[in-house]
C-alpha cells in the first residue's frame, strides 16, 4: 500500500515542485523550457492519478491518507490528510488531465511573452492548490486549496500587471471570492462547534444521527453555499468571472472554465450528506442556479468580446450544475462538470487560438470568415459549440439532458426555464460561431493557424467533447450510468438520485429539446452566417436589448451600491472619525488641562495685597468649613 501512498503524495507534490523550481529559476529558464517542465510535472501528476484510478479500490468507499497533525490544540485536531475516493479521483483526473493539455497549449500561446516562466510557475502552483482542494480530507485542507486557487487566479488574471484594468479585475476576483470565503469560514466554525471535527468522513457519520431540517445544518449548508457562490460565480457574486477574462486565455480555460469555478459544485457534492439534510438550502440552490443560468445566458446573447461570451456561458453552465445540485442530482452535476470541462476548455482554447491567429483581436465584429484560414481551430470550435448546445450524442447532450430530465421530474416549470436557458445558450454560441468563422473577414490582420502545441490539445479536447458522454450513458440508451455508480461509492447521496420517468416521457423530452435546439441553430444561421447583422454601440440599441448588451448594468449597480460608498466611508472615517474625533479626543484632555492651567494661573496676580486678601479669604473659607463640619 506504501506505493499507493507515494502516488497519492506525488499528485500534488509534482506540481508544487514544478512551481517552486520554475519560480526560483524563472530568470534562467526560457519560455519553452519552463513550459516543458511545467507540462511534464503536471503530466506526471496525471499519470499518478491514472495509476491511482486504476489501482484504488474505491468501491470500499475510499480511504484517508493522514500525513501529519496540522493544527493541534486541546479540543481541536486538524490533521493534514488526503481523502482518496471516487469523487476526489474524478476531480484529480480532470484537473491533471485538462490541466496538462492546457499547459501544453500554453507553451505555444505564451512563447512570445517575456515572463512566460513566471506564468508557468503560477499555473503549476494553481494545479497544486486545486489538487489540495479536491483531495483534502477535511474542510480546512479544502479551504487551503480554496484560498490557494483564489490567490493563483488573482496572480494570473493580473498577469499583465501594467494594465490597470487587469489589476482591477484581478482584485475584484479575489475580493469577491473572499466574500464567499467568509461564508465558508463561518460554516467551518459552525460545523466544528457542531461536530467537533471537520473531517468529511466523520461529519458524514455523525450527520446520520441528525434529522432533516436541523436548523444548524441548514445554516451551515447555507454558509457553505455562500462560499460556493463566490467560487463558482453564482448570483449575486458572479460579476468577477467575466472580468477575469483579463488573464491569458489558457488561464481562462483552466481556471475560469474547467476547474476552479467548479470547486463550488465539488464542495456541495463533498458535503452532500449535509445538503441532503437541508431541503431549504437545496431549494435556495436550485433557485439561485436557475436564475444564474438564465441571467448569464441572457447577457451572453449580445456580447461582442469572444471571451466574454464564453465567460457568460460558463456562468450559465455553472448555473445548470447548481440547479442539478438543488434537485439532489449530484451525479448529473458532476457529470456536467466533467463534460463542461471538456468542451468549455476546448472552446476557450479555440478562442485563444483565434485571438492568437488575429494577433490579439477579441471583438467578434472584426472577425468572420476564418473557417478558411484556421481549419483545425474551426472544426474543433464547431465541435465544442455543438457539444455545449447539447446536440445528440455529443458529451453535452448527455449531461445537459440528464439535468433537464431531473428538472422535468422535479417540476415542469424548472424544466421550462432550464430549457429556455439551453436555447439561449445555443443561440449565443452559434451567433458567436458564425460571426467568427462564417461570412467574410472584417478585420485587418493576417490570420494564421496556431502551432502544433496549441492545436494538439484542441484536437484531443474535441475528441473528448465528442465521446465524453460515454462516461455516463443512461439506461435509456443502453448504458448503465457508469459514472453515477462509480461516484456513488464516495457518498451514498451521489447514487441516491434516480429518474423514474417513463421511457416515453424521456424520449419526448429529448425529442423536444433536440428539435428546439436545431431550430435555434437554423435561426442563428440565417441571422449571422449569411448576412451577419452586427451590433453597433449599445447606446443605439432598443431598450430591452440594450439592457442585455449592457449586462443588466449589474456592474454599474455594484459600483454604485458598494464600491463608491466604501471609498466614501474610508475617506470619511479618516477625515472625520480620526482627524475630527479620535485624535482631538486624545489631544483634548491635554488641551483642556492646559487651558485650565492658563486660567488658574491668573490668580497669581503678583499684587502683594491681593495675595494677602486671597490668603485671608482662604482662611475664612476653611474656617467656615471647619466650623460647619464640626
Amino acid at each position, binding site marked *: 500500500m506504501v506505493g499507493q501512498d507515494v502516488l497519492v503524495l506525488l499528485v500534488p507534490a509534482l506540481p508544487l515542485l514544478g512551481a517552486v523550481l520554475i519560480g526560483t529559476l524563472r530568470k534562467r529558464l526560457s519560455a519553452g523550457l519552463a513550459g516543458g517542465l511545467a507540462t511534464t510535472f503536471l503530466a506526471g501528476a496525471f499519470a499518478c492519478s491514472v495509476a491511482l484510478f486504476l489501482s484504488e479500490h474505491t468501491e470500499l468507499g475510499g480511504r484517508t491518507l493522514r500525513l501529519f497533525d496540522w493544527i493541534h490544540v486541546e479540543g481541536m485536531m486538524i490533521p493534514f490528510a488526503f481523502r482518496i475516493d471516487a469523487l476526489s479521483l474524478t476531480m484529480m483526473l480532470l484537473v491533471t488531465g485538462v490541466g496538462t493539455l492546457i499547459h501544453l497549449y500554453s507553451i505555444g500561446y505564451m512563447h512570445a511573452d517575456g515572463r512566460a516562466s513566471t506564468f508557468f510557475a503560477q499555473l503549476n502552483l494553481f494545479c497544486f492548490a486545486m489538487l489540495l482542494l479536491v483531495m483534502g480530507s477535511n474542510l480546512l485542507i479544502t479551504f487551503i486549496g480554496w484560498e490557494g486557487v483564489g490567490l493563483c487566479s488573482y496572480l494570473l488574471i493580473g498577469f499583465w500587471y501594467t494594465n490597470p484594468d487587469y489589476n482591477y479585475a484581478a482584485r475584484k476576483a479575489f475580493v469577491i471570492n473572499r466574500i464567499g470565503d467568509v461564508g465558508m469560514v463561518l460554516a467551518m466554525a459552525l460545523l466544528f462547534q457542531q461536530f467537533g471535527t471537520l473531517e468529511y468522513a466523520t461529519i458524514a457519520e455523525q450527520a446520520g444521527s441528525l434529522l432533516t431540517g436541523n436548523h444548524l445544518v441548514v445554516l451551515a449548508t447555507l454558509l457553505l453555499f455562500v462560499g460556493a457562490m463566490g467560487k463558482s460565480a453564482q448570483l449575486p457574486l458572479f460579476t468577477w468571472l467575466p472580468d477575469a477574462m483579463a488573464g491569458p486565455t489558457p488561464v481562462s480555460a483552466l481556471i475560469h472554465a474547467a476547474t476552479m469555478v467548479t470547486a463550488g459544485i465539488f464542495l456541495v457534492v463533498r458535503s452532500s450528506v449535509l445538503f441532503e439534510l437541508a431541503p431549504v438550502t437545496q431549494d435556495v440552490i436550485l433557485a439561485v442556479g436557475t436564475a444564474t443560468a438564465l441571467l448569464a445566458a441572457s447577457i451572453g446573447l449580445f456580447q461582442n468580446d469572444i471571451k466574454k461570451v464564453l465567460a457568460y456561458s460558463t456562468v450559465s453552465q455553472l448555473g445548470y450544475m447548481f440547479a442539478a445540485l438543488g434537485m439532489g442530482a449530484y451525479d448529473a452535476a458532476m457529470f456536467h462538470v466533467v463534460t463542461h470541462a471538456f468542451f468549455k476548455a476546448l472552446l476557450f482554447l479555440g478562442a485563444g487560438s483565434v485571438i492568437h491567429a488575429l494577433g490579439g483581436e477579441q471583438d467578434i465584429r472584426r472577425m468572420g470568415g476564418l473557417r478558411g484560414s484556421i481549419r483545425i481551430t474551426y472544426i474543433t470550435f464547431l465541435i465544442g459549440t455543438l457539444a455545449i448546445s447539447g446536440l445528440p450524442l455529443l458529451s453535452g447532450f448527455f449531461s445537459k439532458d440528464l439535468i433537464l430530465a431531473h428538472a422535468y421530474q422535479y417540476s415542469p416549470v424548472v424544466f421550462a426555464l432550464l430549457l429556455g436557458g439551453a436555447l439561449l445558450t445555443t443561440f449565443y454560441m452559434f451567433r458567436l460561431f458564425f460571426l467568427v468563422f462564417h461570412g467574410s473577414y472584417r478585420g485587418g490582420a493576417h490570420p494564421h493557424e496556431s502551432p502544433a502545441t496549441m492545436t494538439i490539445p484542441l484536437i484531443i479536447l474535441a475528441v473528448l467533447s465528442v465521446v465524453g458522454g460515454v462516461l455516463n450513458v443512461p439506461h435509456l440508451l443502453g448504458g448503465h450510468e457508469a459514472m453515477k455508480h462509480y461516484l456513488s461509492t464516495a457518498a451514498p447521496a451521489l447514487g441516491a438520485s434516480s429518474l423514474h420517468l417513463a421511457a416515453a416521457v424521456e424520449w419526448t423530452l429529448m425529442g423536444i429539446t433536440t428539435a428546439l435546439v436545431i431550430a435555434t441553430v437554423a435561426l442563428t444561421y440565417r441571422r449571422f452566417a449569411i448576412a451577419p447583422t452586427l451590433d453597433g454601440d449599445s447606446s443605439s440599441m432598443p431598450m430591452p436589448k440594450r439592457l442585455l448588451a449592457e449586462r443588466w448594468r449589474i456592474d454599474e449597480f455594484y459600483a454604485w451600491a458598494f464600491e463608491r460608498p466604501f471609498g466614501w466611508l474610508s475617506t470619511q472615517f479618516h477625515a472625520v472619525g480620526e482627524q475630527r474625533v479620535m485624535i482631538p479626543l486624545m489631544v483634548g484632555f491635554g488641551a483642556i488641562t492646559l487651558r485650565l492651567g492658563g486660567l488658574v494661573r491668573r490668580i*497669581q496676580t503678583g499684587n502683594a*495685597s491681593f495675595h494677602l*486678601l486671597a490668603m485671608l479669604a482662604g482662611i475664612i473659607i476653611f474656617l467656615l468649613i471647619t466650623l460647619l463640619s464640626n
Partner: protein
Amino acid sequence: MEQDIITSIRVIPMEHYLMLSFLLFSIGVAGVVFRRNTIIILMCLELMFNSVNLLLTAFSAYHSDPRAQVFVFFIMLVAAAEVTVGLAILVMMKRNVDSVDVNQLNRLKW
C-alpha cells in the same frame, strides 16, 4: 490693690478679652490687606501681634500661669526683630522704586 485686680478678673468674663483681641486682630488684618502704604501695613502687623499678646496675657491671668507672659515677652522680641527687617526692606524698596506703595511690586506674577 490685689483684691481689686482679682475682682476685676472675676467680673470680666474671658469671652470679652477674646472678643477684644479678636476685634483688634481683625482690624489689623483688614488694615494689612487694604492699605497700600507699606509703613502703615507694618503698623497693622504690629497691631495683630499685640492683639495676640493681649489675649495671651489674659489667658495667663485666668490660668494664673506665668509662662504665657514669657511667651508674650518672646513675641515682643520677635516682633521687634521682624519690624526692623521689615523697615530695612522697606528702605531698600524705597531706594529701588521711589515709593512705598505695595502695588508698585507687581513684576513677579503668573
